[in-house]
């Protein structure tokens, strides 16, 4: 039950993007197509899961004064791993994510969860937390990128959905569209959350 709560927490209640508003750089930058959004979400989730497992296992061995540098080193190691994995097996995805794979190192979501959760809780709860947060991050990324890809190119996951009658709004896949669509999406989520409270 407790594990389920830890897991559920990241999906909605403490959703990293809508509620905590952290990890926005990759959220905005790589959501121009649904495939990129999904790949980024999965890569971040993997790093989050792996580093939460390691850190919650060895948390008693890390001196308190140097914990932040130690966390960053552990995270950076896993990010290097993901980067080489993507380059070897999914070169096209690696090219389109480019700089934002290494930048997972400084994603505040990952460091924040180590500090707030993994360093205080046992391994099994940390795994539940990492899965929930990772999934919470991924679904928002995928949702945002589907909206942007649909409006910007009339396609979803690379398949043309809207017919010839649709005039693509190029702005949606450009930087400005990323800011505006995320802004509107957060607004809609606020509205839904508020409605839920009133009931």
């Amino acid at each position, binding site marked *: 039950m407790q594990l389920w709560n830890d897991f559920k927490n990241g999906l909605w209640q403490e959703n990293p993007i809508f509620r905590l508003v952290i990890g926005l750089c990759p959220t905005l*930058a790589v959501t121009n197509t649904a495939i990129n959004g999904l790949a980024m979400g999965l890569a971040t989730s993997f790093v989050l899961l792996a580093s939460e497992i390691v850190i919650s296992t060895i948390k008693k061995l890390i001196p308190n004064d140097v914990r932040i540098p130690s966390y960053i080193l552990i995270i950076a190691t896993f990010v*290097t791993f993901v*980067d080489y994995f993507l380059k070897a097996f999914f070169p096209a995805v690696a090219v389109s994510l480019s*700089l934002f794979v290494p930048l997972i190192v*400084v994603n505040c979501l990952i460091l924040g969860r180590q500090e707030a959760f993994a360093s205080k809780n046992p391994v099994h709860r940390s795994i539940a937390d990492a899965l929930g947060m990772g999934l919470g991050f991924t679904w928002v990324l995928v949702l945002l990128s589907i909206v942007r890809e649909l409006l910007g190119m009339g396609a979803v996951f690379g398949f043309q959905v809207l017919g010839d009658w649709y005039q693509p709004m190029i702005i949606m896949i450009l930087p400005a569209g990323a800011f505006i669509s995320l*802004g509107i999406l957060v*607004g809609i989520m606020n509205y839904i959350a508020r409605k839920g409270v009133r009931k």
Partner: protein
Amino acid sequence: MEQFTRIILLFVSTVLVNNFVLIRFLGICPFLGISKQVETAFSMGLATTFVMTLTGAATWLINTFILEALQLPFLQYVSFIMVIASLVQFVEMFIKKTSPVLYKALGIYLPLITTNCAILGLALLIPLNGYNFIESIVFGFSAGVGFTLAIVLLAGLRETLEFGDVPEVLKGVPITLILAGIMAMAFMGFSGLISI
């Protein structure tokens, strides 16, 4: 002379055409988090510019003389983030000793710079673009200027917006994002201004 022109072009291109925040999406967290007041936004921009210029120099040296010389490219991320963390720590100690006034003004923002992805992004872009030592420093400095420009402009807009009538659900983060989107649209006007 040619070198000089290149540097000027690099400066203009990094500040306006490829603005780190609005076009490259680097450093969004402080951009949204610390842009409520123009004054603090400017201090943050100043501190970031300072660290970025040093990072530009330091990462070029490390990449050229250690990582490339010893063929250790897989240590790039780990070593860059360590360099940035220690640089920020060093800058903090230095400012604390030499200028307590500035130290007080920057306050909590100094240590936060470590996790600003604009800094690591800058460090990673330098080997990617193949800049030389001087260009790396200019690149770091102009990236910082671009960051300062964007964050101060946004803070100015947000200060004015305090008096505006914003729908309840859009208050806070959503309206700031939409504002940033409109700013990004304005900055798109610079694209194609120069190309290098």
